[in-house]
């Protein structure tokens, strides 16, 4: 199963995760 997020955010938004990285519920994905 997969979850896709599509969202609008300011251009300064930046992902703190990288492809291939393991994440868990509640961990930061991105920040502004």
């Amino acid at each position: 199963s997969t979850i896709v997020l599509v969202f609008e955010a300011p251009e300064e938004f930046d992902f703190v995760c990288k492809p291939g990285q393991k994440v868990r519920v509640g961990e930061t994905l991105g920040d502004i």
Partner: protein
Amino acid sequence: ISNAWKTTPIKWYPIPALLGAIVLVGIQARRNYVADRQGRGKIVDENGKVVTMSGPWTVYVLGALPLNTISRIWGWANNLTLPVWFRPFGFRLYSRIFGCNLDEMKDEDLTHYRSLGEFFYRELKDNARPIADAPLVSPADGKVLHCGSIQGRRVEQVKGVTYSLDALLGLTSDPQGIETSAKPDSDSDHQITDDRQFANVNGIEYSLERLIGDERAGSQIPRGWTKLVSYRWWKSWVRSENKTGIPAGGKGKHDSIRDAHETDDEDAGVPTPDTPEMIGKYANVAYEMGSGALPPILQRHSPGHEGIGSGNKLFFCVIYLAPGDYHRFHSPTSWVVERRRHFRGELYSVSPYVASRLPNLFVLNERVALLGRWRHGFFSMIPVGATNVGSIRINFDKALRTNVRQQRRLAGTYSEASYSLASKLLGGQPLQSGEEMGGFLLG
């Protein structure tokens, strides 16, 4: 010849089952290939081009398998009640194979889980997953397949493999094929208990400021936000901007709102937002003007959600949940879900191996697109099913049924439901960051 015919012994050999299966799958793969070439599928991309399955021959073999039926049988088998003596041994074996952490389960007694399906959908202890204080957090345990910004209305499935955002969210579906149910969950018709607080089904009160994440919530969102207010907002905005050249609409779908609440002199010279195109056009303008949260009536009709705010971009993130992972998903931010679209489709595996070989995988698979808004504008979350986890559950949507057998299924169609009754103040189902939303079930 007669003698040979009568005396020659006939010896029958069974055809190997595997060979028979390969032949049948090959025939079906060929039929699928021909059907795809003829464009029988109606999933279209941003250019109106039909999206079909393509890839190496292994993909066509995979597509020939009755994956939806296999998924339902798999779900039925995994919901069989297991003998109590077998459960600890079986679940520990499963955990060892797939790397589950049994220590963080809410109920650690393995004999309490009647089936593998129940164990698969296990709950975690409170505070097992602390929620970070960040604008966007992970909605699930898993692996990030890809993330980045959306360029040219296409989302990158994995590096170099893209699919259409319009097809993913159903923005350019064939109107003839859209099946609209629009049945909001009656249990979600929450009561507003205070100017700034409202309760969900569990009686837990939310703060508007925290939900919207915006100090404007308390001051600019009027109490009792309704369609009437939306329409009045529209009128006042048109008047204030002194719009000219707007065609005066005839008797449109929103005229009932006007008829019920307004007088003739108020309407003089104010056009009615009759068509989705017209409403969407001015919704975009309003976004550009930075007028903040749009009324739901405008947001719903904004074509393709193209009203991206000034200085904003569209971003995406794809998270893959492996079989051993915790399979409930949580809200990735504080947002309001305005509607959901359920796309029936195939149930291909979504493993990174298949994702890198089957373009349009997430557009072809069965999925539930939850559409709404957060403090920065448009926000959506799309749980995508797979062969082993074909069923998607949304806690606040009891009417949703996924992975069900159907006599006839039109590719590219979807059923839509609105959550506008969940909170009349916010025009949708409000969710806090980290709040459990639902999950994936086996089969």
